[in-house]
């Protein structure tokens, strides 16, 4: 199969996303070394490397999820994009805004808000292109004649709630919020919690899409069970954020409510355990071996992260783990173990669909090596962070430096496993990028031929 020219929009987003992930991981490794050796690369302080790392990795998640949507709708769902021009503008504005953000970090011009450290003005193009993306998405999927499968709902929910929570993240610009420390910090984390839920809607919608395509069971995405879990997820997105702020002095009932909402995830855990025994027996594993492999890894990481999430959502445990590397373990486990594995599955699903097996290779080789190196490294990385986090949380002395010295061995393991994690992911990315380049080349040559004829 050869992609048509307008399908290239999605592929461009995906390739840019892979580039962003590769660079973002490199800056993560630099930041890791700065954690161990504060004098390392003095010209590029940790205040610069951390935001570059975070922004580029988060960009990967958005670019890959958006790229998948732009690709799947016209190419596989027969829903022609409402406006390919708007999608192209979205892509180029994303590139220029990304470069401007990178420039602002490297030159030390900060907005200074965690996760949105760039100057607030650079959010304006993101804001407008997101509206454009939303209009394009809803005008495209409304042409669907069948009832929407759950992944259309999830993508749409991700689009809407990202817009709302992104705006919410900038309420600090209004003095009413900025000048009240408690309100400011609660609203900030309310928005971040829901914003993460929003991008998860985009990513998990992609996961369900890929899984249903591989299994061939399209009706599963319209089942009651699928929608029940979707609404439970949406309920958690809206109300479950306050476990980030148990220790911030907001009203007690807000925190108690968050505790209750967080525990609804036990339902999900119960279902996982119930189904676990029979989960690995079917599917067209061989046909989509790489896509299957990454979904399988995501499945394992979901289980691990859910158990950790439930534990640290209990306030008595949160008292020890809050403000420690346990939190980092959870966010890394989620963004790499779950989000990145799902999105790589989406990438390899597209590659398998668009290239013949002879061209794209098979189930062994560099992708498999990269897969194992990255997942084993991530497991070591995760455990090292947990150990460092508990070391910090249980430290009862008054000296920060003393505590840092005590957890240093764990941090060394964390950094070294971070290096191998990066190498493993790079190996996967290199192959994916190269193969996707072949799809792009095929599509371009296909476009030229009719004119030449």
């Amino acid at each position, binding site marked *: 199969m050869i992609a048509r020219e307008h399908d290239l929009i999605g592929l461009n987003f995906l390739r840019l996303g892979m580039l962003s992930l590769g660079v973002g991981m490199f800056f993560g490794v630099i930041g890791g070394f700065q954690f161990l050796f504060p004098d390392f690369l003095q010209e590029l302080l940790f205040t610069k490397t951390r935001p570059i790392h975070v922004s580029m990795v988060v960009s990967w998640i958005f670019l890959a999820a958006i790229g998948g949507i732009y690709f799947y709708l016209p190419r596989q769902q027969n829903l022609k994009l409402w406006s390919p021009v708007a999608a192209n503008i979205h892509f180029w504005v994303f590139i220029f805004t990304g470069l401007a953000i990178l420039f602002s970090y490297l030159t030390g011009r900060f907005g200074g808000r965690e996760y949105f450290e760039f100057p607030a003005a650079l959010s304006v193009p993101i804001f407008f292109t997101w509206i454009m993306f939303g209009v394009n998405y809803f005008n495209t999927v409304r042409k669907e004649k069948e009832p929407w499968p759950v992944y259309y709902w999830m993508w749409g929910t991700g689009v809407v709630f990202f817009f709302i929570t992104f705006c919410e993240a900038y309420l600090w610009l209004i003095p009413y919020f900025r000048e009240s420390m408690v309100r400011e910090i609660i609203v900030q984390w309310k928005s971040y919690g829901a914003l993460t839920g929003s991008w998860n809607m985009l990513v998990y919608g992609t996961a369900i899409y890929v899984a249903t395509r591989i299994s061939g069971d399209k009706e599963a995405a319209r089942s009651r069970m699928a929608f029940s879990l979707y609404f439970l997820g949406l309920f958690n997105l809206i109300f*479950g954020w306050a476990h980030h702020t148990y220790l911030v002095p907001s009203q007690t009932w807000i925190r108690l409510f968050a505790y209750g909402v967080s525990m609804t995830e036990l339902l999900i855990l119960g279902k996982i355990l119930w189904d676990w025994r029979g989960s690995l027996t079917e599917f067209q594993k061989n046909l989509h071996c790489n896509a299957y492999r990454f979904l399988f890894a995501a499945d394992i990481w979901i289980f691990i992260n859910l158990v950790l999430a439930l534990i640290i959502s209990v306030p008595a445990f949160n008292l020890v783990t809050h403000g420690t590397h346990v939190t980092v373990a959870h966010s890394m486990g989620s963004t790499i173990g779950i989000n990145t594995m799902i999105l790589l599955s989406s990438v390899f699903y597209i590659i398998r669909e668009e290239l013949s097996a002879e061209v794209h290779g098979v189930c062994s080789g560099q992708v498999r090596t990269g897969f194992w190196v990255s997942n084993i490294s991530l497991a070591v990385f995760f455990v090292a962070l947990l150990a460092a986090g508990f070391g910090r949380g249980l430290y009862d002395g008054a000296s920060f430096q003393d505590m840092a010295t005590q957890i240093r061995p764990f941090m060394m393991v964390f950094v070294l496993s971070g290096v191998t994690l990066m190498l493993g992911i790079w190996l996967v990315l290199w192959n994916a990028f190269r193969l996707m380049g072949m799809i792009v080349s095929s599509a371009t040559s296909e476009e030229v031929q009719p004119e030449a004829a």
Partner: protein
Amino acid sequence: MNLDPFHATFGYDCYHFRPHDLAAPSRSRGTIINNRLIFGTLFVSFFFYSAYVYTVGTEAAHVPPMSDEARRGQQVFQKYNCIACHQFYGLGGYMGPDLTNVISNRGEAYAGAFIAAGTASMPNLGLSPDETSDVVSYLGFVDTTGTYPPKNYEVTWFGWVTQEDDPQ
């Protein structure tokens, strides 16, 4: 923290969709309307809950208003991206210590000296004396808002933590 209640839900289910363990497809008009109704209810609840959180739920009447120096200090804190390494209430980067109660615990002079000169693990960012003084004022303001980590607390039978030094 648990950023993503949704992880479990859909990452899991994407993988386990098989006809035999799912209910029959729901394609009736009634179900579509129900889906829209549930979504609409949650969406509207989001706005009411947000309005509560923005106003009543996070008021802190006991805290003195922010001074002009503290306001400028907040801007300086953001300008140098201090949150990349430090935290307030345990939220932020972990390279440096939490600063919520640094003024109560160490005093203004100590905090000012650290900011002005840097340490082995914290670079001297080159703040002017005025900027340093403004940041110290800001840290003093933050200090008045609460206590972190909690010093006097009690763990209840269901895992809740009651903080005696919680201003709320």
